[in-house]
């Protein structure tokens, strides 16, 4: 991988993160917002992979694997919470849950 490829992939990583962040802010559907969160995480993982490959550090590959595992668990917990919310409020619009205060 050349220096230009590294810069190019880091730019892609930043763009994916920025698109994911803005998607979470501007979309109105809770499921779609959850998918934009995954997009943000994918952008971060891409930068982690690029630096791991650049530096030849095996620990980085292990860290990526652990992040994958945690992401899978995160979605396994987030979706049931979403199901419970929709059973209560009957809507996927986050504005309908503005009364939730923890």
């Amino acid at each position, binding site marked *: 991988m050349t220096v230009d490829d590294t810069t190019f992939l880091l730019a892609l990583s930043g763009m994916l993160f920025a698109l994911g962040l*803005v998607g979470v*802010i501007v979309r109105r559907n809770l499921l779609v917002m959850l998918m934009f969160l995954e*997009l943000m995480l994918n952008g971060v*993982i891409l930068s982690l992979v690029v630096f791991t490959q650049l530096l030849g550090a*095996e620990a980085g590959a292990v860290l990526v694997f652990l992040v994958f595992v945690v992401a899978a668990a995160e979605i396994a917990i987030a979706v049931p919470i979403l199901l419970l919310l929709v059973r209560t409020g009957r809507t996927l619009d986050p504005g309908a849950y503005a009364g939730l205060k923890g």
Partner: protein
Amino acid sequence: MTIETVFLMVFALGALTGAVAMFFLRHPMRVALALIGTMVSLAAIYAQLGMHVIAVFQVLIYVGAVMVFMIYAIMLLDVRDRSFTERFSPLLVAGLAGLLLLLGVLIDGLLRGQPFPAVDVPPDAFSVGTFAIVFMEQFWVYFALTAVLLLVAEIAASAVIDIRRRGQDVAAAQAERGNDRG
């Protein structure tokens, strides 16, 4: 320009196209398919970089587990309310302004940054065998800790669902008692 760079650009374009399409598609199922396209393109980029283990994990865990779970949830929650008819929240203009600002800062940082140092990496540094040996020799404790944390999280999620169910049972019993009195 080498053939590897061309492949990288093609897959990067695929990933970016999927991410941008996610903004404009209305139905969550189509958004999920666009995200799957992005994830598969990223897996191809990882494979192109020689990180075959990560590419396999990306397809197995993200596309094979996370997105399948998400698609089940979309099928279960086919709600056609305001979140379906109106794609964007009132924060659309502010969000797009934030996106432009973020992209500007990113491009500026990459253009001004110092070039990355080149390190000689052995060709088999990220093969499955090397990864497995390093993982089992040095990092198995971290994986065990992660597994324990995940178990705790799953138990907590089950507890939340159980509390909710008990609350509904109590409410149903109270309503039944009220009906009997009436």
